[in-house]
């Protein structure tokens, strides 16, 4: 077995962790509230900037910067819902796409205004570990581990708590959830907060590995939508699985060709799959 190929495959797996987290967030929001936040990746960007400023500029300890970032993006998520989504909930779905598209535009431009287009790195160098001749970056491994823990925590929350059960229920029958004593608006708010928190968590993990700049959302945003749609919009498990499949395609494709080409392949695959099975590989 080609060592480098294996290495690429493993690194792909590790990348999948973060993508899967973000996919969970998007799917949660879509499954429950029935809206797609086009600007989701830009929320992640905000989180990354938060980490950068708190840690690299103001010198806060990293864990604290992470915590504040996660909470901050969670709050941002709630604001997005209250200010943008709630007023147009009953509007045509395309309007919701457009409104969050406007948000994307706004966040990217505002970030450019505040931070300029310079690439910024938080400057944390984590070691590379070697396992049996394969080199794995520690930050990737960490990201993967945290993503798994996050996903598990989310799963348990959804399965075992009252609010979590209500969140799962509301996706299946929005109209009569009130008859159970559940305040629909509150659930939407909680869901938006969780979606935001997942974006914030993803931001922390990405900040460890990549530079942040205002348009970084454009690099993985479309990818995440694609993964969500492939796994079936709203299907959390499907999205999770799709994240790993796509990451492998990118990692292995990147090994044989160039990175961009592997992305092109992934997207083309997406388009093709859309025609074969519009409801996604796993589907509803």
């Amino acid at each position, binding site marked *: 077995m080609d060592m480098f190929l294996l290495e690429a495959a493993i690194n792909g797996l590790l990348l999948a962790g973060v993508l899967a987290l973000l996919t969970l967030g998007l799917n949660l929001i879509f499954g429950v509230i029935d809206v797609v936040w086009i600007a989701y990746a830009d929320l992640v960007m905000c989180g990354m900037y938060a980490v950068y400023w708190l840690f690299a500029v103001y010198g806060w300890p990293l864990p604290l910067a992470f915590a504040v970032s996660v909470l901050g993006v969670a709050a941002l998520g709630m604001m997005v819902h209250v200010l943008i989504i709630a007023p147009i909930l009953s509007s045509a779905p395309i309007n919701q796409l457009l409104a969050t598209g406007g948000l994307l535009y706004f966040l990217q431009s505002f970030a450019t205004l505040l931070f300029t287009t310079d690439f910024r790195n938080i400057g944390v160098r984590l070691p590379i570990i070697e396992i049996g001749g394969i080199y794995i970056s520690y930050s990737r491994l960490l990201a993967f581990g945290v993503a798994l823990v996050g996903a598990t925590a989310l799963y348990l929350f959804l399965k075992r708590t*009252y609010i979590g*059960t*209500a969140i*799962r*229920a509301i996706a*299946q*029958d929005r*109209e*009569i959830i*009130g*008859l*159970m*004593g*559940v*305040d*629909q608006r509150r659930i939407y708010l909680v869901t938006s907060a969780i979606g935001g928190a997942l974006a914030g968590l993803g931001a922390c993990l990405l900040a460890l590995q990549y530079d942040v700049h205002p348009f970084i959302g454009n690099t993985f945003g479309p990818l995440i939508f694609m993964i969500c749609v492939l796994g079936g919009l709203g299907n959390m498990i499907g999205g999770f699985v799709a994240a790993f499949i796509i990451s492998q395609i990118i990692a292995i494709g990147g090994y044989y060709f160039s990175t961009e080409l592997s992305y092109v392949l992934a997207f083309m695959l997406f388009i093709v799959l859309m025609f074969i099975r519009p409801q996604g590989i796993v589907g509803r």
Partner: protein
Amino acid sequence: MRAWRKFISAGGPKPIMLSLVDVSAGYSSLRALFGVSLEVAAGETVGVIGPNGAGKTTLMRVISGLVAAFAGAITLDGRSIVGVPPHRIVEHGIAHVPENRRLFPRLTVEDNLRIGAFIPAARHHFAEQLAWVYQLFPQLRERRRQPAGTLSGGEQQMCAIGRALMSRPRLLLMDEPSAGLAPLVVQQVFDLIRRIRAEGLTVLIVEQNVQQVLEVVDRAYLLEVGSIRLAGTSTELKNNEFIRKAYMGL
């Protein structure tokens, strides 16, 4: 548990629990109820019968808050509940078993029951309430880990009723419990309603199956085209010429 059951079956003169006075309601394009008045006393089981499209489901929804009333008064224990959102109505002790069951199909039976106990008052007594519901409906306990959508019609109805009971209601609203069920199962459902009634719960049932429901209720109203046409005890209605001809085929 005992405290709740004792409370709802306390003896003495029965006070009026639910009262509708001159209620008009409908949807944006269509008015469904015109000046409906009815009342339900504590501990009573009251029925509302009438043909399809009479407005029976709208009546239930107006009480439980899913639909807003244009006009009229709705009071629970004398306190107005007009304009109160559905999730608060549940906290006041009214539970609504919707038409067509409306279970959450991909949630397990137990999860459906769990969500019924969402309100804080019910959460604290979740375990005992669950035990009681399983006692009433043993088939549900057997199937508790199955997705609710895979249950048979009759079992789904039991699950829907059980879910409503989980919120520890004082008043149970049931919208066409026999709809779409085989005759044998319908019998089971009405036996169940008798049992619930025996526990002292106040029940308001809306039904198309006139024969069965008149055997179970104390009083009933006839709702036709959004207005109350007749009212009386179940005996009176059973012997009423019009009802016998039009609704019981006699």
